[in-house]
């Protein structure tokens, strides 16, 4: 499986955010997008997920399910965590798991991200880091080949960052693909890098 982007361009609000961008991510490989604020890292991830329309270029997932769009084969982990404060931790995860077509046991996934002790707590009481862990739990509950991670380590403590690095390594070992936007190391061993703007 291979994610191919060539000559990608995106115009938002009359301003060219991305242009002439090309990249490939193969199975078992992670590509980390680096660059200063506002250079279009998040836009690139949203563009791959199909949430932002591209104005130019080609994007394809070779070896993927041709019946599904790339977004439907991808997990998008953005800055917003899509959690409802009045639902409990378990209800939030169970909903997304069922809505996105997963079959994993919520309790097992919650244990993996270290939230099994507070499964019945409304999400309103979670800290920023716990909310992030619950978002990450979604990636484990539903199996999808492509992970689009927008600054995945933000708000996570050292232990959770190590755990996340483990999940990412497992995902890659299982033939998954990762496209991440970041400002620093996200715990992957020697990922390929794509620099946007500035020095490139």
């Amino acid at each position, binding site marked *: 499986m291979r994610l191919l982007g060539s000559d990608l361009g995106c115009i938002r609000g009359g301003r060219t955010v991305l242009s002439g961008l090309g990249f490939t991510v193969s199975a078992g490989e992670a590509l980390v997008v680096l660059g200063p604020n506002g250079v279009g890292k998040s836009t690139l991830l*949203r563009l791959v997920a199909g949430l932002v329309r591209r104005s130019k270029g080609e994007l394809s997932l070779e070896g993927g399910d041709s019946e599904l769009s790339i977004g439907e084969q991808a997990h998008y982990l953005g800055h917003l965590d899509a959690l409802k404060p*009045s639902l409990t931790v378990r209800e939030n995860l169970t*909903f997304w798991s069922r*809505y996105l*077509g997963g079959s994993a046991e919520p309790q097992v996934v919650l244990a993996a991200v270290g939230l099994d002790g507070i499964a019945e707590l409304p999400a309103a009481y979670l800290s920023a880091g716990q909310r992030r862990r619950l978002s990450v739990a979604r990636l484990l509950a539903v199996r999808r080949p492509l992970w689009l991670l927008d600054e995945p380590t933000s708000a996570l403590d050292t232990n959770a960052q190590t755990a996340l690095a483990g999940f990412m390594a497992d995902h890659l070992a299982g033939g998954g693909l990762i496209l991440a936007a970041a400002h620093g190391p996200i715990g992957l061993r020697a990922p390929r890098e794509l620099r946007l703007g500035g020095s490139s």
Partner: protein
Amino acid sequence: MTALIALLVRDMRLAIRVGGGAPIGVLFFLIVVTLTPFAIGPDLALLARIGPAILWLGALLASLLALDRLVAADLEDGSLDLILTAGVPLELAVAVKAVAHWLTTGLPLVVAAPLLGLLLNLDPAATGAVALTLLAGTPALTFIGLIGAAVTVTLRRGGLLLAILVLPLTIPVLIFGVAAANAAIVGPMPFATPFTILCGIALLSIVAGTFAAAAALRHAME
């Protein structure tokens, strides 16, 4: 199918829990209808004559109350991004959200209407007629409101604009809803004529509302 049921259950849960809008609509309906006899005075004949209109106006305004959060909440917390990547057509997703909204805010209005009919001196047959027209008409109000909710989704405090956009579109529903109720009470028109048209408007609103709202949301995501 599992996905749609999951969405229905989630939205209904959100509506009934703390911070959800489900009880607000019914309470507002209750207050509006209770205030009317105080404003009009103890003229029982007049109350009975305008009762169906009062119930309909109350239900119309009450059904608008919780609409502004129907899709805006999902846009603001990022849920809409995930809903779009789920592989479920957006049209179906918004239709299910509207159904959940109707079950938690529209249906209680229908159930409350017979109780409130007592306050307006309506006899049981008239009350039944009003409740039946509300049962057919409130889904139309919800789906017309869904269009407004989707169009105003990116605006902060879009609730007021929503009401201004949606209320003119509900005029046909109001006309035929009240006409059917009055036909059942005083005649001379048969009940079935305006009621059938009301049902037709409701079915049209369900279809048009679903597609218009999905199109508006897609545009808003750009």
